[in-house]
């Protein structure tokens, strides 16, 4: 199993470790609910060093990314971040990712840990098969540690340690700066729906950065957060997770990601299949639902409408903020639109579920 540079720190602190996408990662420290609420109310620190980083540079880097990704790279300026996806010709998703623009000829892609090798191979294949020759692709995943500092107290905590005026750093923008005298990328992004930062530092600096942030943040309620709360936090905001809401078999258009699928920007991989599917009418759609009765909706549970099975839960949990079952479900478009009464099958019971809107919280 792969380990992040912080693995020993997690073990020493008594975190419960699990295998996640080939990585030995902390799933919880003090408890999922406690950690979840700390991020909503104060601040939390995540080790996300398992995420992959792929660098793309060269005169044709822009043209290549415009062809390889679904969002419109032309909308990015230097120092800005964009949420986007890589798709297959079929329109299914290779991975979702954040794209960082340093300059018109220099970008960094932050990709899902378990997809890093697949993504890199896919980009190399596209590169070799396309006419975009003047660019270089480098998998820099092992060179970075990445920590996420998230929550309403994140700015106050980070301000104590950085030379950057964080009030000038807008959401989905980044800067090169120092934190605790270590050089890094400071990005105002995250996966929790709270204000916060993702910090990309040298792998060797990861443990020191973790300790310095915890030390500076303890007085502000900062605690370490595991993958368990990372999942409940993202789900309360309705953010997609690869392998659940989006897969090689699910198009972004079906998964509420039309906003990162710019069909009018010109040719890109997967566009033809998406246009065809849109023309024919999408057969299914991802919808957010809240359980009206007791229970916890979970991945794979079938969804019913008037006695017919109409889809399944892609992600579900007991929302720690609402103390209510919440889920994202992929269902037939015919029932997605209206306010039809839905039910989720939980073991032998069919529990009523209300169609709702995002975010849940």
């Amino acid at each position, binding site marked *: 199993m792969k380990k992040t540079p912080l693995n020993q720190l997690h073990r020493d602190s008594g975190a*419960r470790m699990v295998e996640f996408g080939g990585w030995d990662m902390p*799933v*919880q420290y003090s*408890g*999922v*609910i*406690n950690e979840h609420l700390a991020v909503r109310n104060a601040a939390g620190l995540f080790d996300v060093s398992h995420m992959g980083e792929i660098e793309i540079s060269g005169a044709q880097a822009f043209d290549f990314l415009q062809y390889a990704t679904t969002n419109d790279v032309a909308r990015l300026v230097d120092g800005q971040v964009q949420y986007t996806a890589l798709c297959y010709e079929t329109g299914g998703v290779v991975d979702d990712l954040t794209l960082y623009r340093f300059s018109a000829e220099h970008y960094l892609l932050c990709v899902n840990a378990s997809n890093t090798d697949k993504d890199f191979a896919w980009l190399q294949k596209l590169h070799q098969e396309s006419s975009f020759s003047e660019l270089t692709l480098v998998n820099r995943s092992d060179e970075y540690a990445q920590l996420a500092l998230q929550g309403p107290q994140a700015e106050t905590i980070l301000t104590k340690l950085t030379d950057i005026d964080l009030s000038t750093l807008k959401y989905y923008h980044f800067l090169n700066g120092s934190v605790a005298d270590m050089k890094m990328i400071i990005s105002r992004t995250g996966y929790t729906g709270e204000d916060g930062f993702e910090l990309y530092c040298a792998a060797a600096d990861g443990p020191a950065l973790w300790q310095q942030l915890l030390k500076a943040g303890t007085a502000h309620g900062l605690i370490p957060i595991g993958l*368990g709360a990372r999942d*409940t936090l993202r789900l309360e905001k309705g953010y997609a997770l690869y392998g659940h809401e989006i897969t090689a078999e699910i198009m972004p258009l079906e998964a509420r990601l039309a906003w990162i699928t710019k069909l009018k920007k010109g040719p890109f991989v997967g566009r033809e299949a998406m246009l065809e599917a849109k023309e024919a009418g999408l057969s299914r759609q991802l919808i957010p639902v809240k359980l009206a009765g*007791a*229970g*916890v909706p*979970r991945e794979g549970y079938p969804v019913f409408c008037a006695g017919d099975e109409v889809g399944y839960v892609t992600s579900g*949990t*007991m929302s*720690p903020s609402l*103390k209510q079952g919440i889920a994202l479900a992929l269902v037939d478009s015919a029932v997605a639109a209206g306010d039809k009464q839905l039910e989720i099958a939980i*073991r032998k019971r069919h529990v009523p579920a209300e169609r709702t809107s995002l975010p849940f919280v």
Partner: protein
Amino acid sequence: MDFPEELKYTEEHEWVLVEEDVVTIGITDFAQEQLGDVVFVELPDVGDHFDTGKSFGVVESVKAVSDVYAPVSGEIVEVNEDLPDEPEVLNNSPYEDGWMVKLKLTDTAELNELMDAAAYQEFVEKD
């Protein structure tokens, strides 16, 4: 971790308190710690009958669903009605306020199959 002396235990991490022919059943301190924050509890109805090893209830944490199995055969005579509304009690008080059901034994000889506190502690620490 706590292993009260007066209780009997199963390999599925249930505890049993024996009072003549009625037993009180719950999940152990080890079980609640492994599960993490309990968010949902499903209990049987009074009058339901369960054979040894059959699932009589479900405990769900944020991340996992776990069946709870009948340590001995019998009929449910009482359930902890407060538990579905306050599932976190299973974490805070697994051996007292977190009891799940009371069951009238079919065959008291089945109690001999259960572990005592020392044997269960050894089982958990070896696991």
